[in-house]
């Protein structure tokens, strides 16, 4: 299908926090309580609309176990967005966030948008990590934050779409070099490249661009 932009995402976080379930809820709108675990990496895609433009999200879902860390690392390069997921019912998955974040920052391009996600918000009675703690961590490290439930679908759409909005804004601001695919952004096939050099705000301004 035609799209204006393609964004690459990566989903990371400890094993069992619900990465694959978030992806399945987002791409297929369903929850699978029992499922095989992810070995290596899996893949999903979906089209969304932002600012009237079709955007294709290409999402790489990774294995959380330490053994697979070196494989996961090879996916940071070429990702425009990352969903860093922990489980609000397991304190240790929250404690490991620093390691994940260091890994992500070290191996990704510096503009990668990171969304922190506290998943399993439907399990309020078993909560071990307060929402405020997630918010504080996100603030401290400059991340966007949301609590989601892959089971009830609460905030799942928003988590993926808000990340895309942030990336889209960065493109508009000219932060991303969209011609470099290593940034995890691709311009759609039908999308004339001239568009990207003509942000709307600059249209009709004086001779700065030096056109012929």
């Amino acid at each position: 299908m035609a799209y204006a932009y393609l964004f690459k995402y990566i989903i990371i976080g400890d094993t069992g926090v619900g990465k694959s379930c978030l992806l399945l809820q987002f791409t297929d709108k369903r929850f699978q309580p029992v499922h095989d675990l992810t070995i290596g990496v899996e893949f999903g895609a979906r089209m969304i609309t932002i600012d009237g433009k079709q955007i294709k999200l290409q999402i790489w879902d990774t294995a959380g176990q330490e053994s697979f860390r070196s494989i996961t690392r090879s996916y940071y390069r070429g990702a425009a967005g990352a969903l860093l997921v922990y489980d609000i019912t397991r304190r240790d998955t929250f404690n490991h966030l620093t390691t994940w974040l260091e890994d992500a920052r070290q191996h990704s391009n510096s503009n990668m948008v990171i969304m922190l996600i506290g998943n399993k918000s439907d399990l309020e009675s078993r909560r071990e990590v307060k929402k405020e703690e997630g918010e504080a961590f996100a603030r401290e490290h400059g991340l966007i934050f949301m609590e989601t439930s892959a089971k009830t679908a609460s905030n799942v759409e928003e988590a993926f779409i808000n990340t895309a909005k942030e990336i889209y804004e960065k493109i508009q601001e000219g932060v991303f070099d969209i011609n470099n695919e290593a940034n995890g952004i691709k311009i759609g096939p039908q999308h004339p490249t001239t568009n990207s050099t003509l942000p709307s705000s600059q249209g009709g301004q004086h001779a700065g661009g030096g056109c012929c």
Partner: protein
Amino acid sequence: VTVVEKADSSSVLPCPVSISTKNKMNFLFANLKDRDFLVQRISDFLQRTPDSLWGDTNPLSLIGSSGSHNVPLSSSTGSDSVQKGRHYHPGLPTARQSLLQLYHRDGPEDLGPKAMKERMKEEAWNIHFSEFGRGVCMYRTSRTRELILNGIPESLKGELWLLFSGAQNEMASHPGYYGDLVEQTMGLCSLATEEIERDLHRSMPEHRAFQNEMGIAALRRVLTAYAHRNPNIGYCQAMNIVTSVLLLYGTEEEAFWLLVALCERMLPDYYNTRVVGALVDQGVFEDLTRAFLPQLYEHMQELGVITTISLSWFLTLFLSVMPFDSAVLLVDCFFYEGIKVIFQVALAVLHDNMDALLACSDEGEAMTILGSLIRI
């Protein structure tokens, strides 16, 4: 093997050793340089191997007893209570039977086409056994390979996997080892046990055998025991998937020794921290792709796909990506011929999807093609 002795030398057969097996076959090996040493070693080994053991672990006797699944109640109360205190004891259903045997036991006798096909396969194997022997002394002929390519019947998978992998020898030379390991490890907490616990319900969850506590508990014991035996590996995801299939066709102890054979011989370093062995084989697979499918290799290089998707093919022997029946057939071939088969199938999958893959413009499309085609 029951007896090993020197035989009389003749000009035709100098320095022979005669070896007799339990099923009364005699083999004569001649032209042996270190005959004395060899006879000594084998006799020593035989002496260390308790007699009764062979009766217990011999797959033949297992098959014979598979109809009577209940534990004899005649054992004295004393030993009974000792058994009850243990986590793993002969009274456990999974200590005596594979999960599939237990699972079929409850169902009515199946007379459908699939069951008939199984019977025919069993019959073909029985003929092969009578002609070429059964157990460690079985000859491996071109016919053996044909039979395996047709798929080993369910009832024989466990026995033949043990035989082909060599796990049977190790199991026979370490009586009680598995049971003791289970005793040492149950109740211990470590990173490995935590991770195992989390994955027990994500191992073949669609199979009925793993939707109840019996199957889950057996899987827990085997994985925990292995993590304890080999701390270098501990527990690596993907082991759970493979082990659950081993448990379908073998007892717990058999599944354990098959896992040992996989982790330590047949798939070296695959499940080490950082799955190094599997990554090495990804490299080999890429080289093979370059040699056999050069056009596709060039294209995939641009997309960067091969290493991505094929890792799970190797780590789970296709069990996580193919329909169950096809994947289990592949496991049959794998135990007979080793990793070569997995490489061959992986190349065949790429070859079959070559046109579609060449038409892909990004790695996402390629992932979608390979992911969906293989599941059909």
